[in-house]
């Protein structure tokens, strides 16, 4: 992106921060560790008023911890300092964070879909009232000026549902910027605002952000999309493993340099994804699972196959469509078109019971929402899909349930070992996940679909779960794992499908699967990224 495009934002002289400009954000030696594990170590950076500062880093680099410190969710380790507009931030308090002028727009915008833009804006500060009665004209004027500040020209009386995704994000930004005295807050933090945005709307959002910055707000912009960095950033900071690798003005770095900072030295020798795509494709004979042209709201034609004995990975950023692939293969959510074949026989959508009978098992990513009956016992969760086999004519054979349960508890090392009749909620996350995995493994599925199988589990449980996944594949199941965890893909997958914008954009096999290459596939140049690479 040529520098002229950014000329709308006021040029800030970052090199000579002095007494004349108080930085919107200043971090000095900020560290944070959780039970002995350091996730942020000595981070120092500053953001000037009117500057758009992009924060880059892979999963686990410490980005989100940093943001949670700013929002008052985490308390940083003693010794570090956070200054917002020159004022020290009282750690661990979200009200204090708000008071000194930190504002946040998260991926989940927190807007109310059925209400008007006006009402959504008024939720923050409240309506203009006189004697407790809403004054419509004053409230309307105020909403208009709030929208104008972010350069959004829409009718505040419109229903939110009529807006595009970018416009909604704009409304959330406008609301975040609103403050009692009418002056703009010092700092606006946007956490992956474009993750779920269609490509053509990203530009609109970026231009709104430029307008916002021009009003003197310091913006911290977190993203995974490198092409956006060059369009919006004044400066960019890269975090890796909790350390601030470097902060550079955007004019002084190119994409390759940025990827280098992001991944470290290991990427240097990785082949580009294009090479990988054209690599020899050993045609499998009669794959166990065939998914053909799957289309749904988030997917625009996904095809892949998995052989018995294979562990196939699906990788993609949040918002890429990756999250919904397995659910729609299983039929937990509707498909618009496309077909799923298990050993040549079609799996119909929207009938989990039949899919399970056909040998297809699905472990959802969200345990408490879709995965488990938390207040029922581990045993009841464990035997639910195949209760009939325990039916003894007059009653369920509890002793057999218990002996099977104990058997699997031992196999997966579930703790506490005697907890079979405790509510699932009383187990730790890792043990809950093991129990839910055991529930499916016991059925000896022909296809095992696992959505983020080790999300939020401790490292010991993760290793055990990986062991079990590989054992299931060895026993003849075709396993498909959808995950954002690169280590997981490297550890267990023989083939990885990379998803972007609802389409597969790369397939990596065997030796090609490394964190560096996986990342490279996620961070391809804009043309392939937003333009839509049609091959699969």
């Amino acid at each position, binding site marked *: 992106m040529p520098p002229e495009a950014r000329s709308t934002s006021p040029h800030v002289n970052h090199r000579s921060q002095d007494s004349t400009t108080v930085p919107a954000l200043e971090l000095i030696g900020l560290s944070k560790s*959780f039970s002995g594990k350091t996730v942020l170590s000595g981070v120092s950076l500053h953001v000037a008023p009117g500057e758009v500062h992009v924060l880059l880093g892979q999963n686990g680099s410490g980005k989100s911890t940093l943001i949670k410190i700013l929002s008052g969710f985490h308390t940083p380790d003693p010794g570090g300092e956070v200054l917002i507009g020159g004022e020290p931030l009282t750690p661990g308090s979200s009200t204090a964070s708000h008071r000194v002028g930190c504002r946040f727009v998260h991926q989940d915008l927190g807007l109310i879909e059925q209400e008007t833009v006006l009402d959504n804006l008024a939720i923050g500060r409240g309506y203009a009232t006189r004697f407790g009665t809403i004054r419509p004209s004053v409230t309307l004027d105020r909403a208009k000026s709030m929208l104008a500040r972010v350069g959004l020209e829409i009718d505040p009386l419109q229903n939110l549902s009529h807006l595009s995704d970018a416009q909604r994000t704009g409304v959330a930004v406008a609301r975040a910027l609103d403050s009692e005295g009418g002056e703009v807050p010092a700092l606006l933090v946007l956490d992956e605002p474009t993750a779920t945005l269609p490509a053509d709307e990203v530009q609109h959002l970026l231009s709104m952000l430029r307008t916002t910055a021009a009003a003197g707000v310091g913006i911290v912009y977190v993203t995974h999309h490198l092409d956006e960095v060059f369009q919006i950033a004044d400066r960019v900071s890269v975090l890796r493993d909790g350390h601030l690798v470097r902060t550079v003005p955007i004019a002084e770095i190119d994409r390759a340099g940025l990827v280098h900072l992001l991944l470290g030295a290991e990427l240097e020798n990785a082949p580009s994804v294009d090479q990988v795509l054209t690599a020899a494709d050993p045609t499998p004979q009669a794959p166990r699972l065939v998914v053909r042209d799957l289309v749904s709201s988030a997917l625009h034609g996904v095809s892949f196959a998995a052989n018995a004995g294979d562990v196939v990975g699906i990788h993609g950023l949040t918002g890429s469509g990756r999250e919904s692939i397995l659910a729609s293969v299983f039929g937990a959510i509707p498909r618009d078109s496309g077909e799923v074949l298990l050993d040549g026989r079609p799996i119909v959508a929207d009938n989990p*019971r039949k899919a399970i009978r056909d040998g297809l098992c699905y472990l959802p990513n969200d345990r408490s929402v879709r995965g488990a*009956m938390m207040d029922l016992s581990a045993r009841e969760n464990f035997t639910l899909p195949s209760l009939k086999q325990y039916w003894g004519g007059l009653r369920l054979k509890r002793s057999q349930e218990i002996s099977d349960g104990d058997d699997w508890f031992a196999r997966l090392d579930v703790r506490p070992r005697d907890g079979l009749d405790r509510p699932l909620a009383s187990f730790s996350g890792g043990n809950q996940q093991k129990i839910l995995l055991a529930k499916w493994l016991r059925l000896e599925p022909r296809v095992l679909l696992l959505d983020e199988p080790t999300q939020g589990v401790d490292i010991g449980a993760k290793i055990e779960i990986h062991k079990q996944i590989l054992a299931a594949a060895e026993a003849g199941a075709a396993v498909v794992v959808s995950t954002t965890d690169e280590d997981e893909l490297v550890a267990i997958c023989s083939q990885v499908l990379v998803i972007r914008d609802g389409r597969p954009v790369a397939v990596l096999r065997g030796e090609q699967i490394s964190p560096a290459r996986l990342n490279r596939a996620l961070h391809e140049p804009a043309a392939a990224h937003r333009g839509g690479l049609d091959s699969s």
Partner: protein
Amino acid sequence: MKRTFNLGLDRFSGLYLGAAFVIIFGVWSPGTFLTMDTVHVIASQQAVAGIVALAVLIPMVAGQFDLSVGFTANLCGLIAVLLQNDYGIPVPLAIVLAVVTGAMIGALNGLIVVKLGVNSFIATLGMGSVILAVQAIVTKSETPLPVSSQFFGKLTQQPVLGFQIVIVYLMVLAVLVWWILSFTPAGRYMYATGSNSLAARLSGVQTDKWTWLSLISSASLAGFAGVLYVSLTGPSLSFNQTLLLPSFAAVFLGSTQLKPGRFNVWGTLIAIFVLAIGVQGLQLVSGIQWVQDMFNGVALIVAVSLSLKRKRGLGKSKRAASGAELPDEVLQEPGTAPVP
């Protein structure tokens, strides 16, 4: 799981409370309260209420409210009477037709809840009013005469060991419902549906079917209870009101008993009798009529708040168990995990 012996003050609090009632009212008014008459009266009166409570319990297990049980019972009871009085239909057939009417009401509730997606609270609240209207139509708002057949009365009033036989029906039905809920796949599926219907569906449970069936069983049981009521005390146009509240109070209070956190049959029955002992005792010592309404209303609110408190406690441990801040090892230590 091995359990060390303890007094079980939480799981058996209902029994302790019942015993306390007996002692207090026994001391207070030994002549009137501590008699077999009181025992028989409570047993007979609560037999019908107990069956209605079972009717409330089944859909609650599957996560659905059935607020129409009282109205269903009333209508079905009157239908059984009218069929005999006006059409000369024999007692057994009249009872079967009344229960079938109940089942049809349940099927309709199920249709509204499952197919139209209306929240069961609203669906059955509305249905209750519809049933009341239907009752006015079929009875022309006149209380029917008592059934002439002695057999119909004997059906519930036949003495057994000093008790009226109606209490035996309650026990038989309670054992049946207990068996279904605790020992059959059907019960498991209903508990799973009630706990998390989304997860249950993804585990292959036909959640729609079980929701529907739970509402049909509920209304059928309620219909049968209504028939027993008119057999026991004679036709009435308005006994629906006396049934609904105590049943809900008993079901919620029961969920804090025996198997805390879970709607269950015996907890429900303990609760219904403890409540009845309390009401009966208070009425005997005070002679005040509004005691029952006050007592049941307060009991319902207390019962729900108790069961919510438990649920919240469970939720807390759930958050802790999956929380990123809490290291998993802490919760993994055998013995440190929260005990149910």
